[in-house]
């Protein structure tokens, strides 16, 4: 079983990212479970969402405290939230950031990747240039970096689940898939 935690800012689509990931995993015959941080969500405030992916039905119905993968949808969160809390020693860390992965070496010996999802989403016309909606871009990068789902499944899930701008969202995922940088 793989456990994933998303960190975002309310409005960037972290919760929907976890749902699209679940749909993508389900399309591959896997059993997904996705849920938001249980609480009050507000635009602009730090939010979390979680996903589990397994080959068989997931029975655990508890929080995720030691994720295998952490996904950060906003570079500013790294300074305000302990994004690597509980992340497994050999865990993977994907950060939306214009910096290379080496820029986050201080966070710990995790396998780190970065992708500039903010710029990609803004270029694709998703959200506004100051508050781009980065969830579909980051999923494209996640498919490449963490290999928990295939990019083809992510694209199919985006087409099924995203009600507006499907082409732009798919383009963002594809470009992020190509541009993700690993250490």
């Amino acid at each position, binding site marked *: 079983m793989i456990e994933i935690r998303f960190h975002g800012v309310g409005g960037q689509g972290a919760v929907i990212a*976890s*749902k699209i990931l*679940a*749909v993508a995993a*389900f399309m591959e015959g896997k*059993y*997904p*479970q*996705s*849920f*938001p941080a*249980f*609480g*009050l969500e507000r635009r602009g405030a730090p939010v979390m969402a979680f996903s589990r992916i397994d080959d068989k039905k*997931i*029975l*655990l*119905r*508890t*929080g995720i405290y030691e994720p295998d993968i952490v996904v950060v949808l906003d570079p500013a969160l790294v300074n305000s939230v302990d994004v690597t809390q509980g992340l497994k020693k050999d865990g993977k860390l994907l950060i939306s950031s214009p910096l290379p992965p080496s820029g986050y070496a201080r966070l710990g010996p995790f396998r780190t990747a970065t992708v500039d999802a903010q710029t990609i989403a803004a270029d694709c016309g998703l959200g506004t240039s100051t508050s781009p909606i980065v969830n579909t871009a980051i999923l494209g990068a996640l498919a490449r970096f963490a290999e928990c789902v295939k990019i083809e499944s992510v694209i199919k899930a985006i087409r099924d689940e995203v009600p507006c701008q499907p082409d732009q969202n798919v383009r963002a995922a594809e470009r992020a898939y190509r541009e993700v940088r690993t250490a």
Partner: protein
Amino acid sequence: MKKVIMGNHAVSYGVRLARAEVIAAYPITPQTQIVEELSEMCSDGRLKAKFVKVESEHSAMACCIGAASAGARAFTATSSQGLALMHELLHWASAARLPIVMTNVNRALGPGWNIWTEQTDSLAQRDTGWVQLYCEDNQEVLDSTLMAFRVAEAVRLPVMIVYDAFFLSHTYEPVDIPSQEDADALLPPRKLEKGTFMDIEDPRTFSNMTPPDYFMEMRFKLERAMRRAKDEFGRAAGEWKKLTGRDYAAIETYRCGDAETVLVAASTAVSTARVVVDSLRGKGRKVGLLKMRMFRPFPYREVVDVLRRTRKVAVLDRNISFGSGGIFATEIKAALSNVPGHPPVYGYIAGLGGRDITPGTIEEIFDRTDRNGVPDDPITWIGLKP
């Protein structure tokens, strides 16, 4: 067709497949998406129901009472304070013998203001004459919604479907959406027997003054209907299994065969407990699990048949009756009390106000039960901060 959906939408799909005719609801977290989705279904024509916006939960139930009295299939959903506000009318719905179905997403009652899961809201309504069914996963939520209408209409009593806030309500997982054909096979249109509903062709008075000469027999009949609800649930579940292959019963046992310690639980804690039972069995511990799906009517015979054979019984309650103890534990003790040489019952309270019930929480309950003698106190608190 399988879809990845949240627990709240599993209810909405169930209500649509049940062809509900009147829906009246007032939004409250964590129930809100149930009625949001239903209101969309009503507006875009996927569900041909009258959606009535009301100014409170009390009015929502009043509206369902009116609709069901006139013969309609009526539905509402709520949580916590909303359910508490309905209390007076919950008695009315059952005593008027109205087959209303309601979903209650378990949420703690405030203050402290809390939107997270706890069973005290629904269990506090245990004496209102509503059938209560507790669900473990989103599939069960959907299937139970359909079976609820079937049972309600068979015995003419209201049914409450109950499940955990967030752990199901907001959690996405794959759910097999039954076909309309299968749903219709389980649940034909509501049969309206003459004299049991308000009919302008056949005017009668309803719910009028009932003196001591008659009142007690009405309560006797209500109780008899409640007992029949268990058999009707069994019948509906049997048919549903033939249609879908999915199996439901008033209670469910997991690895209880040779178990020396059996944990009793309801809702999502059951799902996590399955993982713990497997893990402890792997270490040679003889542990088992009894899932309480049906709380009202209380399945005495089924519960006693399982628990009388075990050495110790642990009960996990995500609820509390202040001054007494966990509500499931109290009922389990009552069920066993006349069984000669029955096993001792250990009552544990955990997970109030949404505090996580982890595998560690459940392991601690098994450890304490195996290690310790019967506590004097009916409550052992798990996971309390010092």
